[in-house]
């Protein structure tokens, strides 16, 4: 049985800090060494308390890619508050709605952004470094396993973000399981280009500090060579990125010539990265393991992980569940489907959150009897590996046959010359719906559209294939499918293929046989 303070995630994390623990800002070289970390976290807790915040109060934390905001986030938890990490760039625009929804009592920003709504909503405004509280061993707040530690915005591309209620127990369970799945040692240093307001970024911060390691923040991924050089300069062992980050490394950086001798692992989550891109990354940096992972904010962060040694024979899989996550694949009747068959992926365990803030209906729909219905359509093979084949609602229905966007996109991404692609359903007179494809291709791939068309599954009725410079993505690199139709108007000159596929002009009877 844990003592109450031990359920305080930030307090447990502080206890585990070691000599190698530090937070660094790569561009400036600013550094919070081991001893300063625990002091700063306790000072933040003291500052929040001095501002009148009490156990369970919510505080908005304006997050950026520098160390201080991560310390404010951990300091809030340490003091028994509920941290609401939010990207500081979005505070001006969406902060007021978030403040009202969370009924937050304070907002902290590093540079004192002072949003005009803060006073209107009655929020205390805090900024910058906390003053030294004068006591080195400030006691953490006692928390129970189920006390809320953070409200995390969902990162999905669908509609408005929801706030997930993440408890201290959720964070401890997920952090420990991730460490085991990634085999993190006691001497790790992560290079982080993801903010802590995104659960993937938060999980990297948590796991590396929990192991007594370090995190190097770098806000310069606009110029990826700088980040690659920082990995080498600071001796980083882990790099975490969403699929877009790896696409940028492969296409828009000098990763082929910048040595990364210290790197042990690439961590990839936040959507599917094509198998061809993963193979390229492996070939360029063969000494670093490539960890493909799957997760959801609703499950704190990570759900499954593909061990790098199985990358070859399980390419395209999201791996096996973390060792404290249970999995079911459920059919439309609510019963488990046999191995190899598709159904909705449902997960349970101590890292599954309690649901959404103030959304009882959606919480009831997604969280049933201790199981989280992920909304992802998946199958599990005989070896227990999970394969995501689609997303609830993300499919085409052509002549009565359902085909998942994910399945189509995976097959198109395998065509040589294709870098990224996205599928969309468009109305079709005979088939009900047809496929509209958007493809980002290598500059030298001239006949890529024809190759994509030839490679489409026979059951697909293709309306159009449009070559575009890039796909619309949100700040976390997630595809914004609703913006795809606009791309048709911005297609690369000369490359847009709007000619109706020959299939679509055939009579319906004939289509149904293809």
């Amino acid at each position: 049985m844990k003592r109450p303070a031990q359920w305080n995630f930030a307090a447990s994390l502080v206890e585990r800090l070691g000599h190698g623990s530090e937070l660094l800002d790569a561009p400036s070289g600013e550094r919070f060494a081991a001893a300063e970390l625990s002091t700063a976290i306790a000072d933040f807790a003291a500052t929040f308390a001095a501002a009148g915040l009490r156990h369970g109060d919510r505080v908005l934390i304006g997050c950026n890619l520098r160390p201080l905001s991560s310390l404010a986030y951990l300091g809030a938890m340490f003091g028994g508050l509920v941290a609401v990490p939010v990207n500081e760039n979005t505070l001006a625009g969406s902060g007021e709605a978030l403040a009202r929804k969370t009924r937050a009592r304070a907002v902290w920003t590093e540079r004192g952004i002072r949003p005009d709504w803060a006073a209107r909503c009655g929020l205390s405004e805090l900024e910058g470094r906390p003053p030294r509280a004068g006591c080195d061993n400030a006691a953490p707040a006692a928390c129970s396993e189920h006390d809320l530690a953070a409200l995390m915005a969902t990162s999905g591309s669908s509609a408005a973000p929801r706030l997930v209620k993440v408890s201290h127990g959720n964070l401890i369970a997920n952090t420990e399981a991730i460490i085991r799945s990634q085999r993190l040692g006691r001497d790790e240093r992560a290079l982080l280009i993801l903010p802590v307001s995104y659960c993937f970024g938060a999980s990297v911060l948590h796991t590396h500090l929990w192991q007594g390691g370090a995190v190097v923040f770098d806000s310069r991924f606009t110029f990826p060579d700088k980040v690659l050089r920082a990995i080498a300069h600071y001796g980083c062992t882990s790099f975490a990125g969403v699929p877009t980050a790896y696409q940028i490394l492969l296409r828009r950086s000098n990763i082929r010539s910048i040595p990364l001798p210290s790197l042990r692992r690439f961590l990839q989550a936040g959507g599917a990265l094509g198998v061809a891109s993963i193979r390229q990354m492996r070939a360029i940096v063969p000494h670093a393991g490539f960890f493909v992972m799957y997760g959801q904010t609703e499950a704190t962060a990570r759900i499954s992980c593909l061990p790098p040694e199985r990358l070859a024979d399980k390419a395209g899989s999201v791996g096996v569940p973390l060792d404290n996550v249970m999995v079911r694949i459920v059919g439309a009747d609510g019963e488990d489907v046999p191995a190899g068959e598709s159904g909705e992926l449902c997960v349970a365990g101590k890292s599954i959150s309690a649901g959404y803030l103030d959304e009882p209906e959606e919480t009831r729909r997604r969280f049933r009897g201790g199981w989280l219905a992920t909304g992802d359509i998946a199958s599990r093979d005989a070896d227990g590996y999970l394969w995501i084949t689609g997303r609830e609602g993300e499919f085409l229905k052509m002549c009565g046959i359902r085909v998942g966007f994910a399945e189509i996109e995976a097959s198109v991404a395998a065509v040589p010359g294709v870098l990224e692609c996205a599928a969309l359903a468009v109305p079709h007179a005979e088939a009900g719906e047809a496929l509209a494809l958007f493809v980002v291709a290598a500059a030298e791939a001239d006949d890529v559209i024809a190759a994509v068309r030839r490679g489409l599954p026979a059951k697909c009725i293709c309306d159009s294939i449009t070559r575009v410079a890039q796909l619309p993505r949100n700040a976390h690199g997630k595809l914004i499918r609703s913006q795809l139709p606009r791309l048709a108007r911005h297609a690369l000159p000369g490359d847009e293929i709007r000619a109706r596929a020959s299939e679509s002009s055939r009579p319906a009877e004939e289509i149904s046989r293809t």
Partner: protein
Amino acid sequence: MQHVLARVQRAFSAAFDTDPGSITINTVPGDIRAWDSMGHVTLASSLEQEFAVTFDVDELMEMENVREIVRIVQAKLARFDQAVACR
């Protein structure tokens, strides 16, 4: 130089929907919220369309502000003019 800057401003408008007048020779990524890693890719495509050139990876890395962008574009256009004159 002024002419190139005006066309660079137009490329910024196409990429980020910015007011052309708000882009000066001293503008840096931190001044425009959308000028992040993905925004840089959008901007590069927009500049490539505007000037009918292509940038290599090293040139993308050097585009740390509008002044550098103008310099890189001018150098490319000059090389192109030279090649035409030699023909």
